[in-house]
């Protein structure tokens, strides 16, 4: 009998050695290096793309939501000296002098982002109606050449005598500010610099966040109701038929989002197809046609249609893997069709259901174009408000703060989902 037992070789450090005496780990690293390098190289384009197009913009957004340098850019000296003010009475003469000189300098300035107009806009966010004060004062200040600056300024406009304005200016000249988050959550600073609820008229964001979440939940729920039976049918039909139907499901993907949304306008408008049919059948009279679009109803209908495939696909892919024998086994054991579905089939489709729910819900809360086109005023979602601040009002910081809150909501949802279902159970198909 020959002894074929293999003895592990070790060095002094207790590491396993190869037959050549090289540490096993080192040798393994060498032999797999090429494969690892190749893998890295293949993924590099995507990683670079993601960093440039995703990580950096999101970082920018997070930064911009708390950073706004309009104040300190226009009033660099004042921005430093005002910080020593104890917010009692009015600032010192030195601070007034800095302010006036900074303003005079800014008037001559034509550099983007450093004009009096930028400052006025920034202050106007916090104290609405102060814009004209700055532009008017800026003009008149050019004639003020010597002190006392405090009196000169108050002579131009009585409002400069208001300590609340100077408290606001002290806040505004700080680059890092929580103001935009406060605004996004319907809060503001009062004259004393305390945080209070915004005027009722301006409380639009929180309610819009709730509306967005509510509408998204409704849309998700409707897509589940519609997609579940369709997915079941698709998964049980023979391959040829199910492929045909699958194409019908995917057809919307091949059509522009804009086209699909405008198609809904054609169908749902008061003189549109749906109303025509209802009138024709006689369910409603010609003079009281139903308003189905430019409100929440329109948003829901169009978004359900657009998001439906995102629910069907994950459900389908999970259902396809469930052999019919499970249901049959349950039936043979005495379960009624409903019990068999509830106890055996439904639990097994949960990964797909959860993936579809997550996908549709998160897409829905960030949806922009469809609510913009068919939502009217009532059906606008938070993304439309964000777009308004980025494109129209140019209050990018507020837009960024709203966007960041939306991002946080999505992350919380992911976290919650992971707690409840487990992210590893997700099946997107």
């Amino acid at each position, binding site marked *: 009998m020959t002894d074929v037992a293999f003895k592990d070789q070790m060095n002094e450090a207790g590491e396993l050695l190869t037959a050549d005496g090289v540490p096993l780990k080192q040798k393994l690293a060498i032999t797999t290096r090429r494969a690892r390098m190749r893998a890295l190289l293949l993924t590099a384009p995507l990683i670079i793309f993601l960093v440039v197009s995703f990580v950096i913009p999101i970082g920018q957004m997070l930064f911009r939501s708390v950073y706004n340098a309009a104040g300190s850019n226009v009033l660099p000296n004042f921005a430093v000296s005002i910080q020593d003010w104890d917010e009692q009475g009015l600032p010192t003469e030195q601070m007034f002098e800095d302010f006036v000189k900074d303003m005079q300098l800014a008037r001559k300035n034509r550099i983007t982002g450093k004009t009096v107009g930028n400052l006025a806009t920034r202050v106007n966010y916090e104290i609405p109606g102060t814009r004209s004060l700055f532009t008017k004062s800026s003009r008149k200040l050019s004639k003020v050449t010597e002190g006392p600056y405090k009196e000169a300024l108050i002579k131009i406009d009585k409002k400069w005598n208001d300590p609340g304005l100077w408290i606001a200016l002290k806040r505004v000249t700080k680059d890092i500010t929580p103001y935009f988050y406060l605004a996004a959550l319907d809060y503001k600073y009062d004259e004393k610099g305390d945080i209070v609820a915004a005027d009722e008229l301006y409380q639009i964001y929180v309610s819009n966040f709730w509306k967005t979440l509510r509408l998204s939940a409704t849309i998700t729920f409707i897509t589940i109701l519609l997609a579940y039976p369709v997915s079941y049918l698709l998964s049980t039909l023979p391959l040829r038929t199910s492929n045909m139907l699958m194409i019908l499901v995917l057809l919307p993907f091949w059509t522009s989002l804009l086209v699909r949304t405008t198609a809904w306008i054609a169908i749902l408008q008061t003189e549109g197809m749906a109303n025509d049919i209802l009138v024709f059948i006689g369910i409603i009279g010609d003079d009281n046609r139903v308003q189905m679009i430019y409100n929440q109803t329109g948003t829901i209908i169009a978004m359900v249609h657009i998001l439906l495939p995102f629910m069907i696909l994950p459900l389908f892919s999970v259902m396809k893997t469930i*052999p019919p024998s499970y249901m049959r086994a349950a039936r043979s*054991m005495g379960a009624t069709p409903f019990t068999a579905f509830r106890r055996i089939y439904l639990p097994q489709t949960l990964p797909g259901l959860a993936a579809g729910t997550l996908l549709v819900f998160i897409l829905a809360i960030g949806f922009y174009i469809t609510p913009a086109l068919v939502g009217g005023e009532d059906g606008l979602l938070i993304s439309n408000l964000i777009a308004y601040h980025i494109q129209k009002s140019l209050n990018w910081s507020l837009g960024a703060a709203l966007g960041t809150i939306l991002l946080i909501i999505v992350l919380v949802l992911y976290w919650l989902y992971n707690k409840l279902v487990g992210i590893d159970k997700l099946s997107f198909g």
Partner: protein
Amino acid sequence: MSGNQNNGSADGSQNDAYVSFQRVQKSYDGEILVVKDLNLDIAQGEFITMLGPSGSGKTTCLMMLAGFEPATNGEIFIGGRSINHIPPHKRGIGMVFQNYALFPHMSIGENLAFPLEVRKMNKADAEKQVKRALDMVQMGDFINRRPAQLSGGQQQRIALSRALVFEPELVLMDEPLGALDKQLREHMQYEIKHIHENLGVTVVYVTHDQSEALTMSDRIAVFNDGVIQQLSSPDDLYERPQNAFVAQFIGENNKLSGTVTKINGDTCTVKLDDGGVLEADKVNVSAVGDRTLLSLRPERVEIDPTSDMDDILDAKIEELIYLGDHIRVRMNVAGNDEFIAKVRNRGEKRDLKKGQTIKVGWSSSDCKALDA
């Protein structure tokens, strides 16, 4: 060929059969009959196997019995009651599936408790019964495991005990051992057989594996083309196949074709296509001049036969395969070069060589004259 060899009650009368298929037909598309006029009676406590190639209609029959497929025509009775309009969950039939169909999101215990739970059995009784069913297959320690944590053989046992836990009188098994490796499959065959003997349940077992059917069954129904070709006990099926399909499907089989030249009672004389003349057992030929296929089991072929053998032919050895317990000799006999003989390995030196010409012979009763 038709199902007329079986002892079913084609006249539609009720007898004491526990399960009875009467004139059952099944078509999925309205063009092709998958099951053609099936008549089959199964006695209480019997272990009956439906054996046949895939597409022969055996699984369809099982599905009709379980209630997952409606019979297109005819009626199925259990205990004298027509079950055509009883939904599957009210039939009280235990079923074992090929892929086990253990619910992956439930533990073994929950899987077994499921049929008791839907029957609203109280918790304590159910627990006892689950434990007993698990002990029956020696899986009592696995009650808290998940199906995915078990091996194929263990899953199979759980599936078996789950089908039995609610004490059904009839258990259907649809190729339950198909996914197991050979050794485990053989082991499970004995285990299923013993459970059947101990519990006395009626078992309808579907398989395409003939050795499985022979090992376990009281009776075997050989299916082909939607028709029961033969329904008999395992030894009858092997020893006395009724037609060429059964002879070929069950066990190994040497074929020689020829024409019947004379019929004398239970035997007949057959002239082979190459001119040889043989005596054969008359099974499925009716008249002189009929074409026939002679069927002969390899182990009944004698090499260097004694002169009192009924049939003796020349053979040229084509190939020798050593298989331990026996040697397989492939040779050319009467133009058929796939003719196999099994020579038992008794340790004595056999002087067989490839290319050698020898004589082979057999008793005429082992040579069956079947339909061509």
